[in-house]
């Protein structure tokens, strides 16, 4: 499983049928990188950024998945960002990736990723940032957003 496979599986999991914003992809894949023992090459590398951990590779892979028709970029009315929404193709690829994770004995990691997807999809922006900062304060050092008391 490559890091892009995990990104696609994250998108294919249930929990956010209208798709996720880039910030939730960043935080979700960061938590996956920190909580699981998958090989290092299968994880994105993160740096502490203005809003916590950020990996430029996630942006380029999301673009690549859109270009290949595996994800849909949907503008959000009234907002400047787009959501990345899964489609039938995403779900089919997700099933295939789950089988592959099983073959590679990575089902525990796949389950953890599912749990993370449920978490990041059910939290508001502030709650999500607080969760990540509390769990990994070393990635909050450059955040420009003040933490709640």
């Amino acid at each position, binding site marked *: 499983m490559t890091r892009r496979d995990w990104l696609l599986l994250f998108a294919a999991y249930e929990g956010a049928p209208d798709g996720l*914003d880039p910030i939730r992809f960043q935080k979700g894949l960061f938590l996956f990188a920190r909580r699981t023992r998958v090989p290092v090459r299968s994880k994105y590398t993160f740096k502490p950024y*203005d809003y916590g951990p950020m990996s430029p590779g996630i942006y380029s892979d999301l673009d690549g998945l859109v270009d290949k028709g595996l994800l849909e970029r949907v503008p959000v009315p009234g*907002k400047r960002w787009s959501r990345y929404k899964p489609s039938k193709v995403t*779900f089919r690829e997700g099933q295939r990736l789950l089988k592959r994770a099983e073959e590679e004995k990575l089902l525990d990691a*796949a389950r953890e990723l*599912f749990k993370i997807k449920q978490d990041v999809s059910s939290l*508001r*922006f502030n709650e999500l940032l607080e969760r990540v900062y509390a769990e990994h304060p070393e990635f909050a050092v450059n955040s420009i957003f003040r933490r709640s008391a």
Partner: protein
Amino acid sequence: MTLIAALRCRDGVIVGSDSQETRGARGRRIARLAQKVYEPRPGFLLAWAGTQDVAQSFGLHLRDEELSPSADRLDIKARLHAILMELRVDPSIEGRSDHVEFLVAWWSRREHKPIALHLLSGGAGEWVESWALGGMALGVESASFAIGTMRYINPADLALEQAKVVALKVLRDAIETSVEGIGGRVQMGTVQESGLQIVKPADMRGLHDTVDLWEAQCAELLLGTDEPPSTSDTPDRGVRPPN
């Protein structure tokens, strides 16, 4: 024309611009992308607005000039003026050199602080204390308005990372007013003690996400919180791993 901006903060200077270059008469203009923020000479960050060939000539002259950020700022200012004056008497670009302005930033090793200079083709040069804007009058007006909506933020209190976000917000708000002649993505560079940096595209996306988050938090304060994605009514056909 263009929109260029400089913001001097606690520990550095941000220089930014739009990325659109326009040619032709009003109503028949052609727009294309141009690099407007760059490092023409080690230690100096430059943003230009106005006629591209004149701006390019200025950049080339600056590149070839024996100029160091360690020099006295008044000497640097005098040299930059001299370059501009040389261009203005060049008969091949003389007419077009009336419509160009620059923002030049560097870290003064002598004064141990960031310096930014707003250089106008008429010969005037203004030191940048907090904000400086240049380019199309309507773009400058829009950007000034955007700055006015954030007058509760004192640039002198901002760290460089925070200032980048504020500068991006001003530039993208101004660009989104759709003033003819400015547009495209925001370009940005920074000057601080550790050196000069052109902000890479991936980092720009991160900065945009940060501004998006900032705006989302403002909206949450006023309107209450947006519901998280899991509360959607759309049927969820997503996959799940075996137990």
